[in-house]
């Protein structure tokens, strides 16, 4: 693991620091394996809600959008057009988060078992 000197942020912007690339690829590989395993177990009944749920989860892009849109790029902290791109990305991601989770729950509520059983 890369040594992080005090004061350097772990998340997001470690621009001058050499990030742990191999570590990231490790994480990618392992989470893909977990994903394949877990998704294979998902009931075929629920493939449509699954898709809207993973939609909402992949809107985790909001994290990147906040980091890019919320940062200061100029000395007086005025928003620049780079901030604006990030802010638009936040709008797009939040749309997916809100509609994704709500519609998944709405669909899942409809799956009922036989009465009296």
């Amino acid at each position: 693991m890369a040594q992080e000197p005090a004061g350097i942020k772990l998340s997001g912007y470690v621009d001058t620091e050499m990030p742990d690339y191999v570590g990231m690829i490790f994480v990618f590989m392992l989470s893909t394996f977990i994903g394949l395993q877990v998704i294979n177990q998902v009931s075929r009944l629920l493939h449509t809600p699954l898709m809207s749920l993973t939609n909402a989860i992949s809107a985790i892009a909001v994290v990147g959008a906040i980091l890019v849109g919320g940062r200061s790029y100029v000395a007086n902290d005025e928003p620049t057009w780079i901030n604006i791109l990030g802010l638009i990305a936040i709008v797009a991601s939040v749309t997916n988060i809100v509609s994704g989770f709500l519609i998944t729950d709405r669909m899942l509520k409809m799956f009922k078992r036989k009465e009296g059983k």
Partner: protein
Amino acid sequence: MSLWIQLAYLVATALFIFSLKWMSDPKTARRGVLAGALGMGLAIVGTLIDPSVIAGNYKWIAIAVILGTIIGVPLSRVPLTAVPQRTALSHAFGGFAAGLVGTAKFYYYVQGGHELNTFIMIALCAEVLLGYLTFTGSLMAAGKLQEVLPSRPILYKNQNLINFLLLVAAIACCGLLVYDPHRFSYLFPAVIVLALLFGVLLIIPIGGADMPTVIALLNSYAGLSAVAMGFVLNNKLLITAGALDGSSGLILSIIMCKAMNRSFTNVLFGAFGQVQQAAGEAEKRTVKSATPKDAADLMENANLVVVVPGYGMAVAQAQHRVREIYDHLTKRGVSVKFAIHPVAGRMPGHMNVLLAESDIPYEDLVEMDEINPDMPQADVCLVIGANDVVNPAALHNDKSPIYGMPIINSHKAKAILAIKRSMNPGFAGIENELYYDDKTLMIFGDAKAVTGEIAKALAGETGGH
């Protein structure tokens, strides 16, 4: 502070994995949504306390979140027949967000004169390419599903050659950008334009019948663009969540391809349904027809009725009448099962949601592979709005364009009732031999009207007994 952020991300990752794990059973699935939403909330709070996010920008972020909520809430209330369009649209938003973040990061590095190493630049190129092509590709898919765009394949000359050249051009630009991002920064807009164009040209030649596969594939791309963003931003949460989405899309598209006996390359470059019209034999054969009353009598005296619903049922809004039939029959001790083909509907699992909406218990929704062994025991098979998925030509006629596609073995049932508007061939323009089978009775008419009359006939007889 940063330790807390990393811990929040760690817990969020675990919650996302549990969220998907709980989707394995309808009983626990709603808990999965809660876990996912909690994970997302934690991730957002964790990011907001990141020291690089300055307090002065909180108000802008708040406005963006409110705007997103205002757009998102109505999108979650669309009718269930429109869920495939909504899904495609959300892939478009996901791709767009990834593309924008990638663009912003690139210009941050270039304008600030910061060093951009090879790894980050490769990831940036992947993020931007995948993001923007998912954006326009998904918009095209949504347009086709909403029928704003024609759902038939839109063909143009040398489409595969043009697409290939576009891709080569985009990759060449990326190669130069990776080689020296600062010197070739003027190529970055070209990469964006090529990706946007590629997304359009890749999806418009694909016909409506292949949309379930395309949606699943675009789902995968949207996830992978989030992974690439994670590499660029050195953020493991983005990588894990994106990988979960990417693998989900991959599995769903493999299932869809298998269900149609097609390969990825065939879906993406094959333009289904263009040359196959000639395959139907022009031979005039006779069909037997029956009235809804006959159908009611037949089903009432059955032990096992298997219903094969297709998207036509949903288009005609006949689900609720079908539920009435289900209620009348089960009340009399007739066992009723619904046989669901993986590609029934317009996205993976779509038909299950449509039937669940009309209060049919999910225990009676049976997958194709599970129902097929029981088909010979079925006294009646009622086909509503399904066509190609019950065509026995797929099993034995190697000249048929759907040859090799797994089907629901309706032809093995003791009797078949098929509700159809007319004898016009279905979506792919293929004659269905099932309708000419001696055991088959056709009931002509609108699916909603016919199922309504069958339900009425069944209800009337209850009173008589």
